[in-house]
């Protein structure tokens, strides 16, 4: 490549390389028609659920706040179609539990957006807002980490006192097999993402940004490198195709060779990481005054008729996406929200798309069931592939034996739940299941100890 692109890098230990299956890499993002009814959960982010501020039968416009942030780690929720609030009720969401959601029914008349939202496609490059205003706007627009973590973005932009950010890293790695939402967004909205990056840099007061992209997306690397050629301080970092390259800690290590300490945050090494999708959402919020009412979702699966990338209103039933992609294949055995390595299995396609829904993956019957668990042959492959340097086989055994003190000593809390161990185990042992159990127990033991 002629452009100033760094050498390919990767994180130093562990990792796996599942079949990429990026079936939708060549499919442009299509706008999915706004549904007649949406169910918008009030808890789509990490932190306190938002507080509903609308009432039954109230008329709402697209982009109007319908639930307010309820604390520092929380964020706003907006109406994603115009119409009437049908009810506020418990609805099953992607967690499998019934949780509170605001249900809006579309009116007969044409869609109506809230005032002051710029719906044009014109690129607005000049950033007029200052640091504090940007952070405020990000909160108002209800932006959360769109890579799937759904951590409220304004919190990440508010650097704690005494810390200083040096780098912004934009995560365009998309290391999960199948998913292509970020890939397509970089290709189609690259200019906007760069402006978004500059907004984030301004809010963080940093002058250096790195965009990390796995090298299985050469077109995206080229596109972003072309756009950053004249940008001061923004560069593109191609990365080896190795899962979990897009894990926050792995990405920072690969791009900057800095190691986030155990139990620490990226800001401890002077870095803040945002997803490229988040950067796009920030651009829209700050430059166009448009809150987070829609996102790109990849709907895919080996037997899907037409796997696609859709721009979807939050709250749209997953079933609408499935239908738009050609209907549910008969042999579907599992429906996953997110990627196959870290996504959540859904128990129904009637749940709504949420802010963190990066993809919907339909897995055929024959791949849906796990293999029968066999005895551990101590091949040490789980140790080999752990990107955090843990010993999954040991953590599983210790958890089974309820030796939680040793589970804690062996750094269970460092586990990022990437699933490489369970993926690789030749004996089909449910390593991560037990590690999660161990992690949860240890975390609650620590809480008890501190009280």
């Amino acid at each position, binding site marked *: 490549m002629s452009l100033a692109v760094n050498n390919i890098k990767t994180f130093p*230990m562990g990792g*796996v390389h*599942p079949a990429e299956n990026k079936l939708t890499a060549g499919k442009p993002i299509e706008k999915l028609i706004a549904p007649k009814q949406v169910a918008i959960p009030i808890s789509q982010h990490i932190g306190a659920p938002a507080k509903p501020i609308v009432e039954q039968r109230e008329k709402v416009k697209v982009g109007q706040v319908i639930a307010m942030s309820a604390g520092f780690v929380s964020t706003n929720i907006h109406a994603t179609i115009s119409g009437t609030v049908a009810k506020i009720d418990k609805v099953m969401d992607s967690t*499998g539990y019934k949780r509170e959601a605001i249900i809006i029914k579309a009116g007969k008349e044409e869609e109506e957006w809230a005032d002051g939202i710029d719906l044009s496609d014109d690129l607005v490059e000049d950033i007029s807002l200052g640091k504090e205003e940007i952070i405020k706007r990000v909160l108002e627009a209800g932006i959360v980490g769109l890579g799937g973590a759904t951590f409220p973005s304004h919190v990440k932009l508010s650097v704690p006192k005494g810390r200083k950010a040096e780098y912004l890293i934009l995560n365009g790695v998309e290391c999960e*097999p199948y998913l292509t939402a970020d890939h397509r967004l970089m290709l189609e909205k690259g200019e906007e993402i760069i402006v978004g990056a500059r907004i984030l840099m301004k809010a963080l007061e940093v002058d250096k940004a790195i965009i990390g992209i796995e090298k299985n997306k050469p077109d995206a690397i080229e596109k972003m490198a072309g756009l950053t050629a004249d940008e001061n301080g923004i560069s593109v970092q191609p990365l080896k195709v190795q899962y979990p390259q897009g894990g926050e*800690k792995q990405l920072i290590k690969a791009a900057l060779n800095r*190691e986030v*300490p*155990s*139990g*620490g945050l990226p800001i401890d090494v002077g870095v803040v990481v945002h997803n490229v999708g988040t950067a796009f959402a920030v651009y829209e919020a700050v430059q166009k005054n448009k809150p987070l009412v829609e996102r790109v979702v990849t709907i895919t699966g080996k037997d899907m008729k037409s796997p696609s990338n859709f721009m979807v209103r939050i709250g749209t039933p997953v*079933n609408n996406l499935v239908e738009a992609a050609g*209907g*549910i294949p008969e042999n*579907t*055995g*599992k*429906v*996953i929200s997110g990627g*196959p*390595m*870290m*996504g*959540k*299995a*859904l128990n*129904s*396609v009637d749940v709504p798309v949420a802010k963190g829904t990066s993809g919907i*993956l339909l*897995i055929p019957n024959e*791949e*849906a069931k*796990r*293999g029968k668990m*066999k*005895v551990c*042959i*101590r*091949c*040490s492959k789980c*140790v*080999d592939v*752990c990107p*955090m*340097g*843990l*010993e999954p086989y*040991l953590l599983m055994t210790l958890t089974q034996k309820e030796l939680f003190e040793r589970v804690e000593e062996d*750094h269970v809390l*460092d586990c990022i*739940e990437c*699933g*490489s161990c*369970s*993926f*690789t185990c*030749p004996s089909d042992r449910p390593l*991560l*299941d037990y590690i*999660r159990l161990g992690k949860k127990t240890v975390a609650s033991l620590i809480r008890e100890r501190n009280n």
Partner: protein
Amino acid sequence: MSVQFLTVSPSPHIHSEDTIQKLMYGVIIAMLPALAISFFVFGIGALYVTLLSIVSCVIIEFLLTRYLLRKDPTILDGSAIITGILLAFNVPSSLPWWAIIIGSLVAIGIGKTAFGGLGNNPFNPALVGRVFLLISFPVQMTSWPVPFESRLQFLDAATGATPLAIVKEGVDAGIPIPQLMNEIPSYLGLFLGGLGGSVGEVSAIGLIIGFVYMLWKKIITWHTPVSMLATIVVFTGILWIINPEKYIDPVFHLITGGVLLGAFFMATDYVTSPMSSRGMLMYGAGIGFITVVIRVFGSYPEGVSFAILIMNGFVPLMNKYIKPKRFGNKKNG
């Protein structure tokens, strides 16, 4: 319309292609080059010993698992076949049938099933069987058929000493090394497959091909074999530089006495080797060190089997105290 009975389970939702069978049969494939060269060098004796050993190991495993452990036998996982081949690899091609069966019984019965079967045995089963035979039937276990000479015979095969034994006895008798070198085949011959000795150690090249195959297929990692071989080279190299009259050179040590067989196929046994790569490095170094100590200062001409078994005993301790490098923990790094 919607699909009923969706499977709901925690992530990850996909699995690699690896299965126990695939890994075990990969090891078996890796052993084939050495086996083929051995058939060529030792003739039907090697074939007979290998087949009998495999069959008896598999049958014994089946019977013991079913009637003693009362579990479903998993003989098709390939591990009993590996034990069978490895046991055959470690004995002379003229070993009588009853000794092979006793060896299999000890390997599978005492070495493996007594501890609960695959995954639970602390010591390499094939080596347990081999060492039991060596101690119990030293005559039969050290009658080495001469390469290429009696390929069509079995029991009456002409026997001779292994190169390692020739050197060991010569040195003990005070004969200088350069003179002894005339009595053993050329290194190239040893490398390709002219080595008097057990079924599996006959050809360095065959073993190396298998090793490369296993690395390529990611069945094993390099840590244990490389650390073991490097230790042997360094240790014997120092002795050789000090006194080349009394101590033979490192290359000879590498290609004789089952060092490569041990390094590639026995020290790398999943169940009985350490879990972390740091542990593997130390484990390999320990095997190399003990091997040289036994060979040079002990009374056995070769020492790989004992060295591996001794280090097997340290593996649980190593797993407990030698931890992988943790991400984000400087004090452990």
